[in-house]
C-alpha cells in the first residue's frame, strides 16, 4: 500500500502543481476585482485604488503566486479578502455542513443505487422490469436541482412535512439536523444513484454470463446466495469507480443544492468567493477539491483491489 502511494506520488504532485496554477490563473482572468467587494459599487476610483493597495493586490502575478505557494507549503492558506478571516478558518467552519450533506447523500446513493441495480438485474417479469427501467431513466434524467425543486414543491409547499431551507449541525441536534439534511441529500443522491444502479445492473448481467456462475448453479447454489456471494462481489468494480467519481462531485458539486436548500456549505462559500473574486478562498477550494478527487480515485483503486484478490496495486 505504501509503495502504491509512493508510486502515485509523482503524478499526484504534478496534478497538484498544475491545478494550483489553474486555480490561481483562471479566477484572475475573469474581469472584476476583490477590492470592489470591500469598497462597494458606489466607491470612487480613488477609494478603490486605496483598498486595492491595502489588500496587497498591486504586486505582480508571479510574486502573488509564489507568495501563495510559499505560504501554502508552510500551512498558511492566506486570508480572505472579503471576510478578512484566515481561509483555513473559513473553510473549516463550512466543512461540517458539506461533509454531512455529502456523507448522507453518499449513503443514500449507495442504498438506492444498489437496491435499484440489484432489482433490475434480478427481476424476470418484463413489465416490472420495464417500469423499473423507466423510473431509473427518469431519475437519471432529472438533475439534482430539479429533484430538489420538486421535493420543495411537494414536501415543503404542498405537504409541509420537512424543512426545506436552512440547516442544523448533526452534532448540535441529530434529529433536527437529519430533518434538514434528508431532502437535499436525497435530491443530490437520486440521479447519481440511478447511474450507480445502471452500472451495477450492467455489471451483474455481464457477470451472469461468466462460467463460474454456471458452476455455482451446477453446485446447486440458490438465487439469493448466488447474488450475494457470486454476482454482486464480482460486479462491484464499475459501481465503485462510479461511486468514487461521484463522491468528489457530491463534495464539491452540491453548489446548486446548497443554494436551493439554503445551506451554508463549501459550495456556497465557493460561489460567494467567485462573486467577490475572493481569490485565496477560491484557490484553496479548487486545489482542495482536485486533491480530494485524486485521493478518492486512489481510494477507489484500493477498494477495488481489496475486493478483488486478483488485482494488485500497481503504479
Amino acid at each position, binding site marked *: 500500500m505504501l509503495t502504491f502511494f509512493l508510486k502515485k506520488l509523482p503524478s499526484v504532485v504534478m496534478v497538484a502543481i498544475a491545478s494550483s496554477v489553474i486555480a490561481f490563473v483562471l479566477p484572475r482572468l475573469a474581469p472584476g476585482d476583490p477590492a470592489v467587494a470591500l469598497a462597494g459599487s*458606489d466607491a470612487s476610483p480613488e477609494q478603490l485604488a*486605496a483598498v486595492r493597495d491595502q489588500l496587497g493586490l498591486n504586486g505582480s502575478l508571479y510574486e502573488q503566486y509564489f507568495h501563495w505557494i510559499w505560504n501554502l507549503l508552510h500551512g498558511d492558506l492566506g486570508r480572505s479578502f472579503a471576510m478578512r*478571516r484566515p481561509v483555513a478558518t473559513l473553510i473549516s467552519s463550512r466543512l461540517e455542513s458539506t461533509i454531512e450533506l455529502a456523507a448522507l447523500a453518499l449513503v443514500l446513493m449507495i442504498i438506492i443505487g444498489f437496491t435499484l441495480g440489484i432489482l433490475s438485474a434480478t427481476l424476470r417479469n418484463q413489465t416490472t422490469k420495464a417500469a423499473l427501467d423507466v423510473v431509473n431513466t427518469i431519475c437519471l434524467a432529472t438533475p439534482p436541482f430539479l429533484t430538489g425543486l420538486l421535493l420543495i414543491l411537494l414536501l415543503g409547499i404542498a405537504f409541509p412535512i420537512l424543512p426545506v*431551507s*436552512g440547516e442544523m449541525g448533526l452534532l448540535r441536534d441529530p434529529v433536527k439536523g437529519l430533518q434538514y439534511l434528508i431532502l437535499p441529500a436525497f435530491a443530490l443522491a437520486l440521479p447519481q444513484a440511478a447511474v450507480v444502479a445502471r452500472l451495477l445492473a450492467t455489471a451483474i448481467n455481464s457477470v451472469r454470463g461468466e462460467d463460474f456462475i454456471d458452476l455455482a448453479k451446477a453446485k446447486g447454489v440458490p438465487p439469493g446466495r448466488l447474488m450475494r456471494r457470486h454476482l454482486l462481489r464480482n460486479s462491484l468494480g464499475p459501481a465503485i469507480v462510479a461511486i468514487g467519481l461521484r463522491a468528489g462531485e457530491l463534495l464539491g458539486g452540491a453548489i446548486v443544492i446548497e*443554494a436551493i436548500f439554503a445551506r451554508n456549505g463549501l459550495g456556497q462559500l465557493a460561489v460567494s468567493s467567485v462573486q467577490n473574486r475572493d481569490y485565496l478562498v477560491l484557490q484553496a477550494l479548487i486545489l482542495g477539491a482536485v486533491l480530494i478527487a485524486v485521493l478518492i480515485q486512489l481510494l477507489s483503486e484500493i477498494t477495488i483491489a481489496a475486493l478483488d484478490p486478483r488485482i494488485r496495486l500497481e503504479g
Partner: protein
Amino acid sequence: MTIRILPAIRHARPIGGMIFSVVLAAGLCATASVRADDGKPVRGGTITVSQTADAQPRNILTLRAGNSPWVKNVFETLTQTDPETFEVKPLLAKSWKVAADGLSMDIVLRDDVTFHTGRKMTAEDIKFTLETMALPETAAQVGFIAKEFQSIDVTSATTLTIKFKKPLANIFDLFEEANVIDKETYAKREDGSQVIGTGPFKFAKWSPGASIMLERYDSYRDKSLPYLDSIEFAVITDSTASVSALRSGRSVMATGLSQNDLVEFTNNPQYQFVNSGGTIFPLGVNVTKAPFDKKEVRQALGYAIDRQRINDQVFGGIGVPTDLFWGVGSPGYGKDQALHYGYDPKKAKALVEKAGATGAKVPIVVPSIPANRSIFEIVQNNLKEIGLAPEAVVLDVADFDKRQVAGDLGPAFILIHGQVGFSTATLLSSLPSLRQGNPSGFWSDQYATLRNAVTAANSPEATDKAVKALSDYMLDEAFSLSLVQTPGQTILSDTVKGVKATLRSQMLFGQAYLAE
C-alpha cells in the same frame, strides 16, 4: 423564492432612507417607528434576526446592507435624525453650534460615554473617526464631505472645533454615518475579532457567512437599557429560507426579502412591514456614444419606457415610478417633474426617427441581479417598439461594479443605487450616476453650476428652487433616467416590541423587548 447566488451581492449595497418611508406611510399599512409600545418593557431574552447579506465589520463606516441591521446597536453617532420629524437630535454630542459664516462648528460631547473596552470616549476619538471617514480606503459614500474639512481641533476631552473649507449644508449626513470608533482597536475590526463601539450592545461573535452575535453591554450609560440579553443575526442568503425562519418562529425579523416573498405576509396581522431605505433603478446612457450623443434619442428613451409596468410586474406595485433621483417628497421633489416622461411610445418613435437612429444597435449593460434583468426585459421590449435594437450584456456583479466605479459601462446600462435617504446635495456627489466621472460621461458647465447651487442652498426655499432647476436641466438632458424607486422592506413579528429604525433603515434594538 429566489435563488440568490450571485444576486446576493445586491444586498451588499448601501441602502438607506427614511424620507421615502414616511411618504409611503400613508399609503401603506406600515409605520416608520414600529408600533406604539403597549405594555411595559421586560428585561432579558434573546432574539434572532435574519438578514440576506453577510456582515462586513471592516466597513462599519460605510452603508452596507449586511451591516444595517446591527451596526447602530454597537456603534453610536454624534447626532441622530428623528425619522418622523426630521429633527436632528443629539446622541453622543450634547450640543453644537455652527458659526455664522458657516465655516466652523463647535461640538460639545457627553462625558458619560464608554467604549465596550471600558475606556472613556473623548474628543480625540471623534477626531479619529471623522479623519478615518475621509480616507479613501474607508470608501465611505459620504467621505467626500469630510474631505471638505479644513481642520479638526480638539479643545478638551469633551469639546472640539471643526473648520470647513466651504459651508457644508449636508454635514449631518456625515455625522449620521460616522459611527464613533475606538482608535485603539479599530485595526482589529477587520476580521471581526474586536469590533468596539459605544452602543447598547457588544459585538460578541462573527461567523462569516453564517451569523453575528450581539450581547448586552452591561455598562451602558443608561442602566436600564438595553432590555434584551443578546441578538443573533443569522445570514440566510435565500429569501424563502428567511421566510421559513420567520414563520417557524426561529427569527422575529427578516430584512432583504424579495417582493414575491413579502406578498405572503401582506394581510397577516401577526407581522408588520417596516418600509425603510430603498433603491433607485436608473437607465443610464453614455452621451458620448452613438446614438445617445443625440438628445432626441435620449429623450425618446424617457417616453419609451413603461415605468408603471416595471413597477407592477417587477416590484409587485410596491415602488414608485419616478423620473427623479431625489427622495420622494424631499425638498425640491417636483411631483410634475417626476411624471415628466409619460409612457408615449409613438412620440418616442417619432423622436428616434427624427434623429435618424432607427435600427441603431444598443448594447445595454446589466448586472446579473434578478430585478435588473427583469427591468432589462421590459426596457428592451419597449426599445424595440420604438425602433431601436437593444441587446443584453449581462455582467456578473463583481465585474459590473468594477466598471461602474471606473465609469466604463458602454453606451447604455441599467444601474442599481441603494442610497435613498441622503439629502439631494449628498446624492449629487455620492450617486455614481450623477457624480463627476459618471458612466454617462456627462458633464457641463451648466450642470456644475446648478449642482453647486444645490450644495450651497442654505434654506428650504433655496433648496427647493435649486433642486427644481437642476431637475429640469437633467430631465431635458436625459443622460440618466430614473425608472423606479423601491423601498427596502423589513418584516417584523409582533412578539418583539420597541424596535426602531434610523433614517437610513439601520435597525435599533436598544429599546426592544420581548412581548409577554
